[in-house]
């Protein structure tokens, strides 16, 4: 039976879960790539117009490479928002709206990333971290104090033993490979946090909507909600999500924890093995606490705004007003349907709406057209075209390009007298006219059409600044005419 009930449950998930739905769409590859590219980096929220522009640009490139994507970025984003992959919110400081990934889309992105670049999940560090957590849990939950003490003593003994070994010079630091593995493990866990934040926020929004709906719509449960809000119970902060989030954010915002965290990161990044980390990983670690603070600060604001709004909503009796208004609107819209059969949509009614603006127009605002304003005030300078100076053009070209013709001639001329000489010999006979560019040019010619030997030689030239320079290079020999 369990397979049956699970199948039912999963079939439901296939339909309703945004992560699963995204992975099932025909364009899943493109969606994950586009959304991952623009919304999962450091900027997790983007103005709609900017996102359209970025995606349109990418769509053009995709179409050129035989991806069939007939719609515009705007249409796709609208589709993805409907499907629950994107969340649209009013932008805080501008007129428009922003897009960000939904928790579901974040889940899908992470899943695909895992497929594309699988991290070893059964690592030593993960196992040891589970073991540590387990033993800590066993200690913390043990009702018997003597046993708890016993375990703590055992822990202390292990530490003492370790201290002794270090004192005796026996304890060795872990090797770089294992250290790097641990860092990757930590990063993998840390990267899951953004989707946790998105989920928390979505959860709070749902809770808020739900509470409001309960206040306005249903009578029976409404009493309970109202009573609780009146009694000052902060329903949102006191919810399970609220409690676990506040525990987390207290930890993040604790200055001591934050400083210790930053110090530890600084120390880890100073270690030799950390040099192998990707720059993006290093940046991620450095900014980690700040990022967490930003995210949890934002969620804090959301919770506070919701809770305050909800309390005000109830206290101001707005909900009663709203319930009445809802009723009136429903009635009006119903009679509207009836009326629509008797009137043309564009026909005027007896109703007027009072505007809230005074249209300002005054003869004083009229300005006479002054043709004088159109006159150009600066005199026109005429540039006479001149005949191009071939030498000047050549000098210009030589300043930006290696003169291969000159180098080839020099080599071929030397080949008339000898059939085996090096790059250094050429430079002695024909000093570099373009500085290091000539040397590079000769080496390029020799690499393609000459022979590479095992020896090294020192070549000399004068730079563009006329300073003498020298370099030791692998010896290249010219043995035949250059093409």
């Amino acid at each position, binding site marked *: 039976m369990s397979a049956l009930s699970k199948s039912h449950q999963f079939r439901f998930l296939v339909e309703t879960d945004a992560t699963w739905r995204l992975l099932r769409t025909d364009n899943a590859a493109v969606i994950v790539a586009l959304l991952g590219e623009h919304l999962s980096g450091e900027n997790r929220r983007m103005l709609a117009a900017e996102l359209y522009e970025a995606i349109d640009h990418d769509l053009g490139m995709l179409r050129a490479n035989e991806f069939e994507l007939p719609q515009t970025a705007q249409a796709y984003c609208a589709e993805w928002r409907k499907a629950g992959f994107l969340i649209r919110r009013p932008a805080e400081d501008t007129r428009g709206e922003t897009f960000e990934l939904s928790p579901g889309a974040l889940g899908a992105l992470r899943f695909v990333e895992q497929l594309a670049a699988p991290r070893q999940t059964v690592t030593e560090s993960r196992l040891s971290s589970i073991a540590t957590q387990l033993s800590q849990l066993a200690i913390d939950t043990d009702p018997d104090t003597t046993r708890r003490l016993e375990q703590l003593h055992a822990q202390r003994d292990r530490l003492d033993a370790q201290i002794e070994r270090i004192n005796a010079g026996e304890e060795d630091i872990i090797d770089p490979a294992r250290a790097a593995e641990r860092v990757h493990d930590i990063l993998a866990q840390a990267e899951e946090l953004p989707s946790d934040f998105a989920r928390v926020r979505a959860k709070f929004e749902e809770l808020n909507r739900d509470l409001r709906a309960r206040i306005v719509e249903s009578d029976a449960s409404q009493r309970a909600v109202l009573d609780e809000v009146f009694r000052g119970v902060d329903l949102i902060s006191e919810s399970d999500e609220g409690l676990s989030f506040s525990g987390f954010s207290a930890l993040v915002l604790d200055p001591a924890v934050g400083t210790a965290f930053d110090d530890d990161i600084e120390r880890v990044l100073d270690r030799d093995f950390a040099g192998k980390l990707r720059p993006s990983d290093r940046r991620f670690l450095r900014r980690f606490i700040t990022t967490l603070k930003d995210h949890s600060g934002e969620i804090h604001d959301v919770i506070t705004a919701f809770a305050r709004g909800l309390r005000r909503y109830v206290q101001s009796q707005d909900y009663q007003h709203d319930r009445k208004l809802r009723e009136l609107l429903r*009635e009006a819209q119903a009679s509207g349907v009836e009326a629509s059969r*008797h009137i043309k949509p564009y026909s005027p009614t007896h109703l007027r709406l009072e505007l809230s603006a005074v249209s300002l127009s005054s003869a004083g605002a009229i300005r006479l057209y002054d043709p004088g304003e159109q006159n150009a005030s600066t005199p026109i300078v005429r540039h006479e075209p001149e005949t191009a100076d071939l030498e000047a053009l050549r000098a210009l070209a030589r300043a930006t390009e290696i003169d291969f013709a000159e180098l080839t001639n020099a080599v071929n001329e030397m080949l008339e007298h000898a059939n085996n000489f090096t790059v250094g010999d050429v430079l002695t006979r024909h000093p570099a006219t373009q500085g290091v560019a000539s040397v590079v040019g000769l080496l390029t010619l020799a690499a393609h059409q000459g022979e590479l030997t095992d020896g090294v030689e020192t070549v000399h030239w004068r730079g563009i600044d006329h300073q003498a320079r020298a370099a030791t290079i692998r010896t290249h020999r010219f043995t035949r005419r250059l093409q």
Partner: protein
Amino acid sequence: MNDKPDLEASIRPLWNGDTGVLIEQSRRALLELIKGPYLSGAKTTTLWSALLSDEVAIRSRLHELFLELVIDRVGEFAFVRNVATDERAIPSTVRTAPLTFLDTAMLLVLRRMLLSADSDGRVIVGQEEVYEQLGVYRSTDRDEHDFDRRLNSSWNNMKNKLRVIHQAGEEDRAEISPVLRLIVDAEQISAISAEYQRIAANDGSSHYEHEHEDATSLESPDDERLTS
């Protein structure tokens, strides 16, 4: 917030020959209110705080123009409307705009959208959602394409003339003005309901059109400008 009697003395003129009695920010707030459609505390914080601290004086300046100041402190917006009084005949400084049938229906949809959203947040809606809800008003004999054109014209009316929605980012997205909460109130909704019932009862639009012509000529004094 007391109107200081020595206000005039304490105000430094803004330009040579300036006889105004408000400080600069308050004057800007006053102008914003008159230009409309509303002064938003979220968008213009300095003007909003000027309005709150100079409320009495600004209210009084507006009274001189036969205007009443409406402030929603929770929603943080303010706007002006004509003073309503029976004591004497006074000019209408702000005009009223006639509404077509579809305009009224669209107003109801917008008002309902405001209602179902959070009471304090900004509400941004898509043209498509609004049109979808108005689909029920298309009688079967009306061409869909034609109906869409009517919808567009109402939408533009909301945006440009009534100014109860403002473009938000893209062409087909709009923010619903918070003012709509107060101007389309229970009373206005009931009035719309009554009008609908009247239309349904008075079947036969010819009679109606005739009636309407009378109505326009009667109501035209409302359109009288402040300056005329």
